[in-house]
């Protein structure tokens, strides 16, 4: 009896890797097939390139395109118009001899401002979402992984009392009250839970210290709930209105108010991943939890995070535009597209290009981000792969 051919080739070791590589490749193929998403991706790359280019062209002391050069004599000129050489000093004439996008009410070159604004808007979007994603991953990962680890309410109460004491002395009596009331609530809960368990024969006070009533999952989810109770735009508005206006404040605030979605996704992914064999195997091998979370589980959970990142950047740019409209955007001298758009609203009938150009630009970029994000989501979703 001859050896069947199948025995003559190496099968087992390669197949799982081959399968994973094939899956990645087919995800990429699927993504490419989605023409709209691909367009979004390309536009995103173009935007990125333009932003970087803009950064170079408009920064420094004598930039190629100067966004802050004020030429009152040339104000409100329409796009593609030429400068008036008699009215301008030589260095004030724009590099390309025409105002590609026109000028605004202070005579500034709109093209230059748009280029500078591209980089700033991009930064705002990325940093804000970066903060949100990092917070989201950490909290979501903790909630998902340590979900069932319970924390003793008594421990929490003691912690609150200490924090309250410190708060009273260093900061403000209000902290003391807040922490004290938290401690009181926790003690109440502990006592009532303890009364139930106390029937198991141990002395009452032992139960009090030892029982664990809150799981970390519950704690983190309650935190998410609290944050969700505040309508997000109002929260951002409140904080931005009350704090001194600065680009860093805006980025931080947008980031700190949009982490809830990522947290939920990561937690959901982790909860299901935790029961999978490779995690149990890793724990059996004795790997520490940090390594398990970051090296093994995280790469698998990244898919929804990636999707919410792209969509988050889009929404951050829109939020910034909205804040600018209300007067709370990034302050001058920085130009952002939101700034330009809201400055232009005063001249909407006289100089429509001041609103159209940034408006369209925002629309295209945000649209591309959204399409890109949806494309990733569709490509990574195995169930939808059955499409012909």
């Amino acid at each position, binding site marked *: 009896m001859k050896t069947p051919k199948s025995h003559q080739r190496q099968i087992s070791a390669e197949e799982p890797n081959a399968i994973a590589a094939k899956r990645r490749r087919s995800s990429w193929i699927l993504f490419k097939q989605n023409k709209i998403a691909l367009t979004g991706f390309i536009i995103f790359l173009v935007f990125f390139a333009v932003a970087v280019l803009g950064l170079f062209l408009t920064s420094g002391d004598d930039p190629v395109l100067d966004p802050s050069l004020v030429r009152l004599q040339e104000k409100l000129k329409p796009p593609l118009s030429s400068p008036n050489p008699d009215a301008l000093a030589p260095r004030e004439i724009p590099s390309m001899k025409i105002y590609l996008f026109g000028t605004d009410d202070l005579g500034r070159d709109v093209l230059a401002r748009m280029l500078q604004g591209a980089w700033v808007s991009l930064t705002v979007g990325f940093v804000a979402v970066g903060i949100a994603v990092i917070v989201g991953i950490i909290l979501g990962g903790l909630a998902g992984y340590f979900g069932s680890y319970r924390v003793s309410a008594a421990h929490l109460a003691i912690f609150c009392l200490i924090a309250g004491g410190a708060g009273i002395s260093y900061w403000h009596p209000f902290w003391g009250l807040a922490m004290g009331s938290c401690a009181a609530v926790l003690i109440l809960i502990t006592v009532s839970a303890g009364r139930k368990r106390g029937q198991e024969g141990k002395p009452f006070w032992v139960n009090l210290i030892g029982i664990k009533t809150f799981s970390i999952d519950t704690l983190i989810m309650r935190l998410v709930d609290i944050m969700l*109770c*505040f*309508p997000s735009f109002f929260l951002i508005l409140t904080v931005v209105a*009350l704090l001194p206006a600065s680009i860093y404040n805006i980025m931080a605030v947008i980031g700190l108010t949009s982490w809830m979605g990522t947290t939920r996704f990561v937690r959901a992914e982790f909860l299901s991943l935790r029961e999978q064999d490779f995690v149990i195997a890793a724990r059996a091998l004795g790997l520490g939890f940090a390594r398990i979370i970051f090296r093994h589980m995280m790469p698998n959970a990244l898919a929804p995070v990636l999707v919410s990142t792209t969509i988050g950047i889009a929404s951050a740019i*829109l939020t910034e535009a*909205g804040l600018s*409209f209300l007067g709370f955007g990034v302050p001058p001298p920085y130009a952002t597209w939101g700034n330009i758009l809201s400055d232009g*609203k005063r001249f909407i009938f006289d100089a429509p290009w001041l609103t159209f150009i940034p*408006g369209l630009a925002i629309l295209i970029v945000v649209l591309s981000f959204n399409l890109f994000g949806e494309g990733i989501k569709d490509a990574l979703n195995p169930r939808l792969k059955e499409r012909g």
Partner: protein
Amino acid sequence: MQKIITLFFVSVVSFLIIHLAPGKPSQIDPMNPKFTPELVERFKKEFHLDKPLHVQYALFYKDLLVGRTVSWKDNQPVLTKIWERFTNSLPLFIVGTIITWTLSFPLGISSALKRGGAYDRGVTFFSYLLISIPGFFFAYMLIILVVSWLQVPVIGMETFGLSTDSPALSAFMDRLWHLLLPSVLGASGGIAVLSRYVRSQMLEVQDQDYVRTARAKGLSSDQVYYKHALRNALLPFVTMFGLILPGLIGGSVIIESIFSWPGMGRMAYEAILARDYPVILTVNFISAVLVLLGTFISDVLYMVVDPRIRL
């Protein structure tokens, strides 16, 4: 029970944010020339601003829960102010919600049925367009379009001077016209998101085994979709009903500013600017209550509608 604890924490946090933020309410800002020092002192005493924070907290919320809180800006009771603006925002909200929910479902369902076709792709692209456009940009576009094309006035709740001498019907129509554009604007984002969600739910359900069983029994395609698939796909949306509740107290600041609509959004915005703490805190509190109530109702509805949870 957990919800009440959450509410408690929300109240604490919002109180903290307001009070710890820099900047004092204009009434007690010593720099403000309109107030003499005695007025400032009296103001402080009356609103307990000189007491330690935790006492302020307790006093404020006592007033709130009893309903006696008073706005600092114009000395009106907060609840009255809120109610006034609420009656303005309400029609906007109702019309917007009706538009959103009645348009999203047919759009989403028909998109799912014709998946991949030109209709589906068109609707999808249009949805993305709607959520990508900056709000006020879109608003201005629409306004320009409507005003120059249809010659219809759109700013404000009604045309100035109309209500006094015109017959009731035309006044009503006038208000309806003014209502339309801002509602549509507000609803546009919602339609985009909701219809996509409906579509994805339908698609997911279509692939389920029980749909295949239904076809194997000899049901027609229509029966399979509208009876079996739809019922399962729409399950999550019943629960979303409860989440409409928090929208009552909301109101887009942007839309209201553009249309000069005296609604809740603008009131909250002005309160923030003026550091009108009672108003801000009250609105916040009500909003939190509504959110928690809304999620509670959602959970209950979910239990009612899904037999797997109920039994």
